[in-house]
């Protein structure tokens, strides 16, 4: 469970968040939408520690993680970025990438990174992606396509049992078809692992289709928080209408 309490964040004179509160429960798969500058990415950056809050408190499963360094937070939460190059190491092979991330919690000593007994486990995980990667274990990740890299990033992000998964427009750089594949894989992995997720997206349809809860951010405020049943009945047109209404009301 993740709780944000009275989060304030300004950039120089410009205030973005004032007393933002948000509770993410264990089974939440939250999609976050909002126009540019609404604070979606900043929100993820504050949680992951890339940016620091001015005041307020961030708790993950009852531990205060507000001022933890990003690399320490990373032991507990994972993030997949828009750029497929960020989640993997290009000059390492698929098996090496998977192996190194699978030992994230045990630490990195002088034992061999690739554990042969785990290869079959990795193969079956890769098989589920249905991209044929299970036959390319010794291929360098730099040679894979953007979609394949992003699928691998997702797998790697969920491999070490994180307590929270942050998805930062992770399909925005992919073509529409690949984007659908990656979202399906995302949904499947999340359901298997049963971890809370925050997914930022610009695609309203995706925001409705996936997850159990939808947040709309505008100028640092949560202007819409739709849950479960209500969300299921939501249509893109409704959302667009709400989107423009909120924007207009905030302008006037």
């Amino acid at each position, binding site marked *: 469970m993740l709780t944000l309490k009275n989060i304030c964040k300004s950039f120089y004179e410009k205030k973005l968040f004032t007393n933002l509160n948000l509770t993410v429960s264990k089974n939440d798969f939250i999609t976050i939408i909002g126009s540019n500058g609404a604070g979606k990415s900043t929100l993820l950056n504050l949680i992951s520690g890339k940016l620091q809050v001015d005041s307020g408190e961030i708790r993950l499963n009852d531990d205060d993680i507000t001022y933890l360094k990003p*690399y320490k937070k*990373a032991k507990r939460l994972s993030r997949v970025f828009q750029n497929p190059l*960020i989640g993997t190491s*290009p000059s390492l092979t698929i098996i090496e990438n998977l192996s*190194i*991330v699978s030992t994230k919690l045990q630490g990195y000593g*002088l034992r*061999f990174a690739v554990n042969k007994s785990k290869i079959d486990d990795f193969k079956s995980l890769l098989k589920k992606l249905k991209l044929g990667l299970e036959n390319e274990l010794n291929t360098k990740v730099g040679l894979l396509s953007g979609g394949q890299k992003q699928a691998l990033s997702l797998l790697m992000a969920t491999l070490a049992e994180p307590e929270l998964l942050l998805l930062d427009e992770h399909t925005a750089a992919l073509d529409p078809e690949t984007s659908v594949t990656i979202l399906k894989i995302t949904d499947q992995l999340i359901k298997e692992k049963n971890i809370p997720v925050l997914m930022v997206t610009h695609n309203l349809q995706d925001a409705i289709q996936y997850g159990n809860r939808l947040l709309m951010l505008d100028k640092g405020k949560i202007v819409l928080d739709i849950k479960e049943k209500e969300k299921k009945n939501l249509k893109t047109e409704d959302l667009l209408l709400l989107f423009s209404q909120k924007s207009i009301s905030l302008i006037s």
Partner: protein
Amino acid sequence: MLISVIEQGLIFGLLALGVYITYRILDFPDLTVDGSIVLGASVTAVLITSGYHPMMATVLAVLSGAIAGFVTGLLHVKLKISHLLSGILVMISLYSKNLRIMNSPNIQFFQYDTIFIIPKWILLGLVVVVVKLLLDIFFKTKIGMVLRITGDNPQLITSLGVDIGKMKIIGLMLSNALVALSGALLAQYQRFSDINSGTGTIVIGLASVIIGQSLFKIRLITNTTAVILGATVYKLIQAYTLKLGLLANDFKLITASLIVLILGIHHLKSQRTDALC
């Protein structure tokens, strides 16, 4: 003559391995090496002339190199000084330090025992092969793989829950330890250590890495082997140009031109493949 070229190639192969770790793996152009190679040589020279066992002298020289790398890393990671400047600062301070250590601009130790109790090329070959194999194994361990990722994708290091600063420091220590080992062996090979012998070492290391990786881009040859072979080819070219009657002093210009040429060809090649895609 060929034997002596190979021997020197092996000695500089260790330097090349050190430069390979910083330049290729960490993506950290480390100029400390100009100082740490002399540090390795001068520590060895002083210890041998004061009666230490050559083996002990060599080990302590390697440790001194690791310390130099540690300081460069500290400047960069903790004080946020740029990588180039951190290296330059340590290199410059090592110049004074090395003068202090040797207490004179150079030391000869022709009448002392060195590590070379068996034919030089055999011993050097053994050392280089052992170091190379240990490095290959190291790069397959967890920590070694994390080191490889450090230069490859720094953001992933943070995602893996690792302090990237720590990895840079480890890499710099390892690199400069190898460079100091190269210096320690060079001093014992020549039975001589000189304060000015380090100038331009980084360029020799870079040339070896670049030559090795361009010439020996074959699947069966690991990067570490390629880099050592690169150093040997470099020494061959050097010996050949000297034979042609070029002055030793001109060779630095030739080296620099060679690097520019190879990197230029690389750039043009990659531009062409980009255009084809």
